[in-house]
């Protein structure tokens, strides 16, 4: 994927770029409005991550520029303001998704990939990894070409793991991914554990390799190097 990050905080940008680059993605960075406009005029990107508050302008104006160019880049808005108004405005201007600071890098990664998949629907409506095949359109999961019956949460969990292969994903991040704001509820992350346990069981029963490693006390990791 070719990505552009428009973000004025250098350290935050560094985090995001470091995380996204490891999968062989190209991730460019614009630290202000002017740079962002320069870049989108010259290059095409698959997904643009756009901070709304820039030192010399609004990210929403970058969106308008993209629309004028009839660009088919996907746009993920990054905002520090959890304000509904900005969200609605952004989505109205053609953004694909919206994420609020502070976010988990694994969540950002999953969202970027989801946008990418949606934008390239015709060519890429399948996620496949070794024996696992997922049809995004019908939400069917196949292992060794045999359908596996997953619940909605298990399905979402699997996609989340496949988007963040070989990454340690924290329990908090999983909980937030599955339940959004309601993740605040968890006194313990037993719920996450239960879902993971069920998913793992179904996968192994269907003959898949046990890719899920437990990182003790912290979270889980989809270990793609197991064969």
């Amino acid at each position, binding site marked *: 994927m070719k990505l552009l990050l428009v973000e004025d905080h250098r350290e935050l940008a560094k985090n995001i770029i470091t995380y996204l680059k490891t999968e062989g993605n190209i991730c460019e960075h614009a630290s202000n409005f002017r740079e962002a406009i320069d870049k989108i005029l010259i290059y095409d990107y698959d997904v643009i991550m756009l901070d709304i508050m820039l030192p010399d302008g609004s990210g929403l104006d970058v969106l308008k520029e993209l629309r004028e160019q009839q660009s088919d880049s996907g746009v993920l808005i990054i905002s520090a*303001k*959890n304000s509904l108004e900005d969200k609605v405005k952004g989505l109205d201007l053609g953004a694909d998704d919206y994420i609020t600071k*502070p976010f988990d890098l694994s969540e950002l990664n999953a969202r970027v990939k989801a946008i990418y998949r949606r934008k390239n629907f015709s060519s890429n409506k399948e996620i496949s990894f070794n024996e696992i095949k997922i049809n995004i359109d019908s939400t069917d999961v196949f292992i060794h070409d045999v359908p596996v019956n997953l619940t909605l949460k298990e399905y979402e969990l699997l996609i989340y793991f496949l988007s963040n292969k070989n990454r340690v994903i924290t329990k908090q991040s999983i909980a937030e991914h599955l339940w959004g704001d309601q993740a605040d509820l968890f006194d313990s992350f037993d719920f996450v554990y239960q879902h993971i346990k069920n998913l793992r069981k179904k996968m192994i029963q269907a003959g898949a390799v046990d890719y899920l490693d437990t990182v003790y*006390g912290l979270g889980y990791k989809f270990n793609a190097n197991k064969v």
Partner: protein
Amino acid sequence: MKLLLRATLFYLLITLLVFGAGGIITYNIFIDAIQLETDRYLIERFRDISTYLEEDPGFSSISDSKIQIIPVNNIPESRRGRRNRFNFSDTLVWHQGLKRMETNRKLTSYLKTETASFQIEIHDVIVERDDIFEGVFKSQTRLFVILGIVMVISSFLISRWLFKPFNQTLDKIKGFNIKSLQPTQLGKSGIREFDILNGFINQMTEKVSSDYRNLKEFTENASHELQTPIAIAKGKLELLLQQENLNQEQIDLIESSYESITHMSKLNRSLTLLSKIENEEFSNTESINLSEEIEKALADFNDLIELKQLKLDTQIEKKVVIHNDRTLIKILLNNLLQNAIRHNLEGGQLDITLSKKALIIKNTGHALDIPGEKLFERFKKGQQTEKNTGLGLSIVKKICELSQYQVTYEIHGEWHNVSISFGND
């Protein structure tokens, strides 16, 4: 009571005292003037009589009931001086016409002619003190009544005209809305006191508006400025996690930092939300079908209810409509349900009752050693767990205050009972 009417009544009270004093003064002046005139008249009569007597001593037998001439041998020593020549006194005399005793003024004096000496007494009717008093009293009273009526009526008329700028100021103040950030713009009225008041109010509302604007900006900025460093720190920890060969001790350190940062971020979000609610930023009132909203919220929580194996019992009346901001109501329901699920017992119970009057959420949970009402205070938690912010119920309370709903929290053993009554909305 209107200010001007009250002032008028005070003035009337003072006027009453002045009229009383004025009455006494008038009365005395009348008496003095009448006496003086009567005395002068009596002296004149005396002079006439003296002239007659000097010419004709026989005149002393004049028969006039008002004059008495008594021949004397000599004039008493004490009455010889010029100063003591006339002696005036009041006396009662029978009045033939009125058939009663009347007050008369009497002059007693002595006259010495060439041939004889006389004592002469002359008296005449004088205006009675009672009559003077009555006259003065009547005229004063009538004047006072006329003055009173005129003043009260004119105070009504004048107050309308005089207090017009003041009433305009009052209207403007009533119309002042802090959220519009528009200070009142009160003009000149031409009356010094009102102009000072208007100037003061203009200054005050300007100050209030700018303070409110600053506060709002601070809240927004604080949230923005805090979220970014939190996001950075969180991201660094996530990157750190991706390092190969971390030992357990390092993982534990990362985990507890990660948890604290997540907690901090949630606190920040809740505090921002709380101040947004306090600033009444959610004021987009519409009709909301509360029954549907509750069903929707319950569907969202279904997963968690199942996972905690709670027994859910709902009695939700259809089509309960309230008027409020939709976001506020969603936050309210979310916080209430979260609370009831989070603090529930494993395999516990959750009862939800909605009627047109009230929403009652009952859940099982641990018995608490602090009174239920305390839970609405910020950062008060039943158990001091680190995972929750302690702001959920403060947010509930704030929303209820704003919407004028009555909210109570009762704990009976292991039953926790939150009820919200909507009033007559």
